């Protein structure tokens, strides 16, 4: 993963192109991350927008995040948390409502969608940090180092979160 080194000197010229490059590079990933958790492409888009806005805001203040990618994921994460605080989801049932119909027709598609909903419901029941680690480890397939940097914890802590999160998911989704 490329870590961007931006040369920004407040008061002199900004490296505008570098910032545009950063946007191009990370905007799709942040969108993906947000859309998985929000399951809504417009909300995810808003999340991307707010995240980069916050990024620009912090640069203006003269603070340059060392690890831009980690910063962006953290900002997106916080926005999503905030969003759920203000608009909590109704409780999504995990089990029997989603039994696949064995006689089922486009059974494949239907089962996949049901699985998706069950996974989403289970993910949303995890504490945010566990969820984030699961996301980054199993969906984005980042290394432990990268995940630790993104959430601002030690590698041991990240491993522990992964372990707990995965156990919790196993319990919730065991057939």
């Amino acid at each position, binding site marked *: 993963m490329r870590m961007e080194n931006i040369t920004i000197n407040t008061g002199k010229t900004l490296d505008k192109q570098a910032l545009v490059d950063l946007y191009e590079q990370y905007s799709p990933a942040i969108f993906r991350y947000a859309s998985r958790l929000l399951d809504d492409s417009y909300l995810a*888009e808003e999340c991307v927008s707010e995240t980069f806005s916050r990024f620009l*805001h912090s640069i203006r203040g003269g603070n340059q995040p060392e690890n831009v990618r980690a910063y962006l994921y953290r900002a997106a994460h916080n926005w999503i948390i905030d969003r759920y605080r203000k608009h909590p989801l109704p409780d999504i049932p995990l089990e029997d409502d989603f039994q696949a119909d064995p006689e089922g027709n486009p059974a494949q598609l239907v089962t996949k969608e049901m699985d998706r909903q069950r996974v989403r419901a289970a993910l949303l029941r995890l504490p945010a940090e566990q969820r984030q680690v699961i996301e980054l480890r199993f969906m984005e397939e980042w290394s432990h180092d990268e995940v630790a940097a993104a959430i601002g914890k030690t590698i041991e802590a990240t491993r522990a979160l992964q372990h707990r999160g995965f156990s919790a998911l196993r319990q919730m989704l*065991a057939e």
Partner: protein
Amino acid sequence: MDKNTNANFDEHLKEMLKAYGEAAPRRKPEAEKQTRDRFMMELDTLHLGAIPNPSHSGSRSIISVSAAGIKQLKENLAMSFAKRSSLAIATMVLVLVVFLFGGGGITAYAASSTLPGDALYPVKTSIENARAELAGDPEARARLYLSFAGTRLDEIKMLISEGNYSNLSETVQQFEDNIHKAQDAIEDLSGFDAARAAELRSEAAEALEQYSASLNNLMTGVPSNIQPVIEGAINSSQSEIENSNDDNSNVNINDDDSNANINDDDSNANIIDDSINGNDNNDDSSINANTNDDENNSNVNSNTNSNTNDNNSNLNTNDKSGSGSGGGGGGSDG
């Protein structure tokens, strides 16, 4: 599940997670373009202000002012993602006009003592919003929003004394909104300076106490159909006091039970109708689960809870005084 099945299931679970990740909602091209345009616009604002300029303070205020204006624009654009609102567009135009005149001067002064319903009142609120946007520090922002809530309260008093009830509920709504924004700013602050946030929270609580006392005094002077509106404002300021989540002691008000969740250094309050507590005491909220990592927690609940506690000592009690157990009885005076 035996060990083998466990391992198989784990593989299956990993596949499910992967499949889930891949099937996430796709990005809509028009929306993607809009996001990009917004970014470029904000970037331009930054870029503009960064041109070498001997008088730094001058250029900074241009950055700040136009950046804040852009932010306002952006918020309104975000609103119009969901619905095209001519009110949003009008607000945008107004904000731009305000910034053209620098937010100071005759217009601002004329607007400063207006009441809801007056022609220049929107200018007053736009200036307030701009000031809040300009405040980079969450503490300053919180203080500003609290002071705006105070201004709303003054306006409410004036409206009532004039017998002008048509704009009252909107103003009360704004009062409550400002309180929530102050609350949000304090939450932001607690993210990187918990101590300062705790102090600020207790200051805010004091201010809110005063507001709610003032509102109480107003109750007698309003017609009975207006009283519920004022009550709403009172409840709002009180629940904000009670809903602070760091370093405060709070109480749960349920129908039959008193509950308090004490986690980290905190006690958390939930005002809920039944006795199912949903409380997440990390830095986020989850749905209907109490999850606490690596903390000492005491959960005071009398009814249905899902509690997942790691490495914690847990204490379950059922009244404020912290002793006793069993099902919920009437709330006791601890």
